[in-house]
């Protein structure tokens, strides 16, 4: 089951660049939350703060608090522990090219020392089914490399890889922006199905996509969270003028 996320006074920097300023929001469990905003507005940085990936850059800095479920991720846990509980899917599909499809999905569990082959088989099958990739790859699971799939399949493989460790939260940083419309539709279907089991946060440039998959939407601009509300409200009757300008395309 997914868990809620509570963000308080989150600030983030890249060097002297203050990329996130005083972010406060609550993300509901088992919902899809979309984050929209122009390039460089801080939405990707925000997502990377939720699993402590932001700080892997040596010049990055974070302050404030993030609670995921009842875990204060910046005070009560190491980055490694946090990332084990949170799955992440990146903008560009990044399967491991030297591993088979099976090994790609199993990598998260194997990394943490999981060796039971029977359970691994089950997890790989279940994750690939969840990611709607099973039927396309089940005959060549151990023969084909992760890099031999098409772009859309690779991205679903990455989703399966993230799901295999049974995360409580799934972060998706523009997961469909490098894909064609057919693959995009598949990913969106997937998000729709997955949110009953996971809390999903999806960064997207595509506003229709946000409207289609998310219950709630947040609009970021210049490092600030301008507005956060139900997706319906954001797209039909936003409170802030800047939100309205952005979703109607009157923006820069």
């Amino acid at each position: 089951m997914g868990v809620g996320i509570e963000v308080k006074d989150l600030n983030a920097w890249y060097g002297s660049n203050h990329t996130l300023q005083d972010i406060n929001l609550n993300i509901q469990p088992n919902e899809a939350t979309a984050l929209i905003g122009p390039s460089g507005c801080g939405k990707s940085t925000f997502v990377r703060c939720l699993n402590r990936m932001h700080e892997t850059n040596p010049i990055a800095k974070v302050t404030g608090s993030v609670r995921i479920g009842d875990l204060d991720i910046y005070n009560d846990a190491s980055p490694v522990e946090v990332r084990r509980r949170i799955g992440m899917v990146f903008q560009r599909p990044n399967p491991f090219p030297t591993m088979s499809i099976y090994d790609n999905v199993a990598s998260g569990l194997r990394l943490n020392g999981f060796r039971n082959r029977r359970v691994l088989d089950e997890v790989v099958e279940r994750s690939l089914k969840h990611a709607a990739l099973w039927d396309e790859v089940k005959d060549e699971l151990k023969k084909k490399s992760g890099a031999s799939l098409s772009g859309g399949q690779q991205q679903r493989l990455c989703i399966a890889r993230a799901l295999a460790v049974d995360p409580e939260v799934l972060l998706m940083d523009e997961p469909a922006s490098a894909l064609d419309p057919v693959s995009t539709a598949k990913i969106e279907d997937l998000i729709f199905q997955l949110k009953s089991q996971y809390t999903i946060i999806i960064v997207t440039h595509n506003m229709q996509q946000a409207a289609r998959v998310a219950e709630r939407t947040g609009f970021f601009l210049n490092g600030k969270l301008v507005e956060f509300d139900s997706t319906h409200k954001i797209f039909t009757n936003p409170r802030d003028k800047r939100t309205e300008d952005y979703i109607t395309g009157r923006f820069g």
Partner: protein
Amino acid sequence: MPVSVTKDVEKLKDTSVASPQETAATHSGASTPQGVVDVSSVRKFLMARGNSAVADRGFRWLMIACAMSIFAIVALIASELIARSQLSIAKFGIGFFFKQAWNPVTGDYGALTFIYGTLASSIVALIIAVPLSIGVSVFITEMSPKFLRGPLSFLTELLAAIPSVVYGLWAVFVLVPILRDDVNPVLMKTLGWTGFFAPPNFGQGVMTAGVILAIMILPIISSLTREVMTAVPGSQREAVLALGATRWEMIRMGVLRNARIGIVGSIILGLGRALGETMAVTMVIGNRPEIVKSLLAPGYSMASVIANEFTEASDSLYLSALVEIGLALFLVTIIVNGLARLLVWAVTRGASARVA
């Protein structure tokens, strides 16, 4: 749509008319009929260039010649080695490569001792240099603070620039005493039971040659390994980190695994240098044509025997045997490289080599 296209064409005409060349042409009296776009100066220039087919064909043949010269060089070397070792080949046949004898007095020659010496010292070198150089590269690419990165890379590359005779001198005066008095006694005590570290301990021997070779091939392996590891995309590192990997797990799964083809390639190059290295090895290997299990005992390598005895080879069979040693070295290098390639192929079969 059609309207905007016409507009664009109109705009194009405007700019071409407005260019200084055009204005000049109009001034000099050449009249341009209304509605016809005049050829711009850039277009004129490009059209005057022709199709450059001759130059392209010339370039092609030049490149083919460069590539073919490789075949020519290898063929020349091989044929010359075979031709000059005729005497020895005729006398000893294929048995030459499997015989331990080396006796200029009775005229009995075999290459096995030297093949052993070369292989044993090179293997010792690899055992020491591979983990060391991978460690150096991992530190430089993944862990080093920025200010150390430059100096470390520079120093490793500097190691490659030192002439081998200097390594040899250093080995004779520094490495030999250290190994003889400090390292070898410990090895004999702890690993003596394996038989690889048994007396006598002169300080000069296969082991010493291996250590100096390790230092010499370290920069080759580590600089290439560093290049391949730097080329692994950051997205691979992030993918592993996001799964909850520690630093070491990230390096193992995200970096080393993706770079392994390149790492094996760099090891092959290092091995190539170790097999053929002459001067430094000659100065410390002991130069005694004997196969002894103990690595501390003196041995003799193929390159060393050629370098040492070429000038004193008094009769033509002796000389011929030495050339055949050269041929053996040539063959060993080819076989080792072939095996290494086979290894790479076996490791990467099925997996894509996208991240080479």
